[in-house]
């Protein structure tokens, strides 16, 4: 690997080679079924979560997935419901990729990646019935809960969608709302000091993301470098009954059916592992 051309006795060391010819550098590893960071092709990075460490939020989760870290915090506030849906509360998910997490992101309004991830998660909430919005009703036509779900990325190293979704589901599962009463005469909502009520999730969809390198290598849980080198990313979202809630292939090269089917089993296994991690972490609280 170190020698590119023997004739000129021109020698490149591994780091320089990786910078100059990143794709060739990856190919040399992938033909041996291993990735430069030491992972097998279908191996996900080590994931860990920490629940309810932020006291100012009603529910929170700090997630680390390799060198990607995100913090998800949920603030619950009270608002008037929509006129056409007097019993339904609101869920407002936003993902922020601020310039703190990588030099890729600039200060100012959210970039395309952040917008598209927020949008995909919002759609998932609207279409997959994760939460029964009627349960967020405090008093019909008068007051409902608004859950502001904010995910802040603090260190970016690829695969932000999986990280964001898992942190949101974990934070929602640990959400504790105060007991509230609506006082009609004054039109205000009073809350108890203690937060005790948790919210039931109808389903827990989690995702697994892969990228396709050189049309044939499937890399699970890509880091930033792998994301940049690959042309296609594939995301599978499965719920706890192993039912598919979403699949997305964002642009890139055409793929064969077999290649996509190849990922599904590993995706089910991954999402199950994440669910187990969440359950065991919650037990230890």
């Amino acid at each position, binding site marked *: 690997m170190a020698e590119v051309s023997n004739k000129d006795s021109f020698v490149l060391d591994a780091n320089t080679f990786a910078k100059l010819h990143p794709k060739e550098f990856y190919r040399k590893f992938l033909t041996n079924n291993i990735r430069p960071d030491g992972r097998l092709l279908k191996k996900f990075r080590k994931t860990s979560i920490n629940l309810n*460490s*932020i*006291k*100012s*939020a009603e529910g*929170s989760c700090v997630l680390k997935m390799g*060198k990607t*870290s995100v*913090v998800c*915090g*949920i*603030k619950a*506030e*009270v*608002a*008037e419901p*929509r006129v056409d849906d007097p019993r339904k509360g*609101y869920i*407002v*998910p*936003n993902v*922020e990729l*601020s*310039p*703190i*997490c*990588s*030099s*890729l992101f600039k*200060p100012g*309004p*959210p970039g395309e990646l952040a*917008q598209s991830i*927020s*949008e995909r998660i*919002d759609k998932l909430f609207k279409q997959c019935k994760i939460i029964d919005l009627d349960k967020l009703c405090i008093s019909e036509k008068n007051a409902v809960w*608004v859950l*502001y779900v*904010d995910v*802040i990325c*603090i*260190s*970016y*190293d690829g695969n932000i969608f999986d990280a964001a979704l898992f942190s949101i589901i974990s934070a929602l599962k640990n959400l504790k709302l*105060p007991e*509230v009463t609506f006082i009609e005469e004054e039109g*205000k*909502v*009073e*809350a*108890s*000091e203690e937060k005790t009520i948790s919210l039931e999730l109808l389903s827990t969809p989690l995702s697994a993301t892969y990228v396709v390198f050189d049309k044939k290598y499937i890399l699970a849980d890509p880091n*930033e470098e792998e994301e940049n080198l690959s042309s296609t990313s594939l995301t599978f979202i499965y719920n706890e009954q192993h039912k598919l809630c979403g699949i997305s292939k964002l642009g890139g090269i055409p793929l064969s059916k077999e290649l996509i089917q190849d990922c599904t089993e590993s995706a089910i296994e991954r999402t199950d592992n994440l669910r187990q991690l969440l359950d065991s972490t919650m037990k230890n609280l």
Partner: protein
Amino acid sequence: MDKRRINGPEISVKPIEKKSTQPKNNKDDGIRKNNRSVDNIRPIFIKPNVIKKANGSAYYEAENIKIICGVYGPRSSKRSMVSDEGTIYCEFKFAPFSCNKRCGYIRNAQEREYSLIIQQAFLPAIRLNLYPKSSIDIYVTVLENDGTTACLAAAITCISIALTDAGIQMYDLVAAASATCIKGNICLDPDASEENDTNSKFMLSYMPSLKQVTHVLCTGKMEAEQSIEAIGICIDACNSIKTVMDHCLINSH
């Protein structure tokens, strides 16, 4: 209305908390409600090098204050003006879930003010003449807020470590301490409830080895003598914070 984000209802409020009817069994003889002594600062934990892609970074925790800071640079300045000195750019932000009331993504006036204060606190400390035509970008996010002035002081301490982690040349580390005046006593490191009860805020940033003050901020009602006294008390606090910072830097290598 921000079209580039997912928006909720136009107006939403925090529910009103019921006043607890139980009498508070706090002893009234103490000056502070949280039973800390007046010159007590919350125990500090700092960890450098937490953000992979940043040149330097640090995480700061002191009980309920949690701050993360990333430093990018020195990198080429985007401003077209040629300068023979480097510039510092700072962005200070409260995470939406960090405060009692949710704060939006767009920086408000207070956050902008704090960004400027941080820039000023570091101008005398960084050897900017070594970094011509480049800018040093400092991004700070408060993940949990328990006392706004204390957060600002914590951010400055945290940034010092992050700048050191980035290998940026400085004359000295900058440590910062905050204080408030409760019943005529100067109390260090006030938390959120103490801050609500009083209306005086004091914050000082200091270079402990050079024994120089880089920034002082004093707002609200405070007697002149008290302010002078506060400077002395905060300098002592900065010296003890410095030992924590030293430990953190020595252990990280």
